[in-house]
């Protein structure tokens, strides 16, 4: 079954709750109303002929411009080798999406990850806690506006950039150097030597030509 056929069956079953299939730029997707999400997923999993048994991916995308967080479901069927991409939108301020952990166990950890890194709360999830970061971490790193705190519990994660520091040192040294050999008169003296050097390296490239 192609993606659009699956989508048609979904729309026939759920009507307005399933949005139109996106114009396929590369991979098409369809929006689903959050309150019907679990029903839609159950339908996809249990309906003979669809039997989408594999929750391939579950992740989120932050869209601060639209003030929305999309939770994306990549679903696939091992039996029929077809799949569909569903998306659910939630507000950025207090994103809440029903959990599909009851449909696919795989969603358990992936929803925890989205909770951890995006701050999306999955209602009905049995064990919603951070998975990658410590429990007392502040903020959700994959949000677009996340600001690093510069450390954690007093352990800084910043260090000097030696390249920038060296440049600052160099500038001081160059200023001193310039002061020691003031530009106008000596340039004539060092300039030939300095300028004398460049031609010689510049000469070899000419040599092979000749």
């Amino acid at each position: 079954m192609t993606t659009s056929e699956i989508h048609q069956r979904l729309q026939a079953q759920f009507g307005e709750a399933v949005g139109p299939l996106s114009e396929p730029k590369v991979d098409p997707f369809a929006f689903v109303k959050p309150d019907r999400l679990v029903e839609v997923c159950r339908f996809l999993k249990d309906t003979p002929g669809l039997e989408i048994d594999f929750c391939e991916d579950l992740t989120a995308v932050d869209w601060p411009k639209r003030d929305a967080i999309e939770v994306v479901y990549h679903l696939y069927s091992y039996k029929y080798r077809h799949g569909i991409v569903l998306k659910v939108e939630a507000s950025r301020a207090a994103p809440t999406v029903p959990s599909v952990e009851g449909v696919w166990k795989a969603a358990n950890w992936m929803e925890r990850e989205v909770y951890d890194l995006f701050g999306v709360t999955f209602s009905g999830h049995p064990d919603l806690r951070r998975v990658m970061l410590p429990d007392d971490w502040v903020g959700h790193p994959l949000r677009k506006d996340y600001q690093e705190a510069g450390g954690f519990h007093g352990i800084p994660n910043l260090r000097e950039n030696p390249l920038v520091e060296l440049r600052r040192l160099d500038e001081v040294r160059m200023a001193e150097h310039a002061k020691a050999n003031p530009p106008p008169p000596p340039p004539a003296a060092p300039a030939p030597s300095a300028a004398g050097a460049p031609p010689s390296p510049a000469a070899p490239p000419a040599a092979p030509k000749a």
Partner: protein
Amino acid sequence: MSKLVLRRIDRNNEEMLINFGPQHPSTHGVLNFLVETDGEVMRRAIPDIGYLHRSLEKIGEMVGYPGYMPYTDRIDYLAAMFANEGWAIAVERLLKVEVPRRAQYLRAASCELNRIASHLVSIGTMATDIGAVTPLVYALREREAINDLIEALCGARLTYNYHRVGGVAFDAPEGWRDKVLRFLDRFDSLLQEWDRLITWNEIYLKRLGGVAVITREQAIDYGLVGPNLRGSGVDWDVRRDVPYGAYPDFKFDVPVGRGWAGTVGDAFDRYYVRVLEMAQSTRIVRQALEKLPDGEYMAKVPRKIKPEAGEVLSRVESARGELAYYVISDGTERAYRVRARTGSFLAMGIIEDISSGLMIADLVALIASLDVVAPETDR
């Protein structure tokens, strides 16, 4: 381990709580399991990950499409070729670039060599976790040979950064093909020796057979992929079923768990599927190198990679199963969102539910048989 977990555990009973890791020889500093045991038998093992979390997905939003390639090496440092390839395929699909045949063959050859190397580590550490140290050394010895080959190909032994958007970074060096073929001949005979040394060792069979059984339904439900899925009897391989690159040109079998040591989906099946996969990989490398087409190894790709807006999911069959990149482009030089869906992450998810009733020694076998690699879990 967090208070949130401790709250889930009833402390008013006779069970002992043990922190299995991170300072433990079997978790080598990057994993932690809170193990609730009743003597030798576990009630459950709650995994705690994140020790190696580097937010690679966030970095992907910052460094641009070609610049992310070396970072993909770090997603799974035992099988970096696949992470490279997956990323390259994702960006190529966004850019709609056709990869030259030669590059695709080189990709397949390098990836399959890497698969052998990765599986060698997996089965070698598995043997060590079961208590036999010697097979690990033999496995690493052969992995060294593969590393040498890959080093000659791309200049690095671990973080290859070999694939590029639109092809591969280097053509095969002179004489490389013969060296690889010579190695493969040797490796095929070594695989038989390996089987006699450890696979069919009675203790090994008894330690792995019937242990930590994951049924077919569970494997699919929990989203296991790759050898873990096939070990449970699901005949599914992205290379064959959702073909990409040069794989449609090659003949190879997909080994599926058959319950060699008693039960389909036990630790031994997952182990032995990997051993058989290595033999199939040598077949693929042979075919790829024997049929290696002439021509370019890099497509014409604009200097500034700026795909049009859109989103794509690329799948490759990594050594740890399906590795999927979900990439959203907003038309700029940098990806808007990068998501790497890795096999190890979900394999960790199943441990808590499978571990109840196992012995502590079986937990080690379970972790080893799932072949979880911490950087891939944590990303």
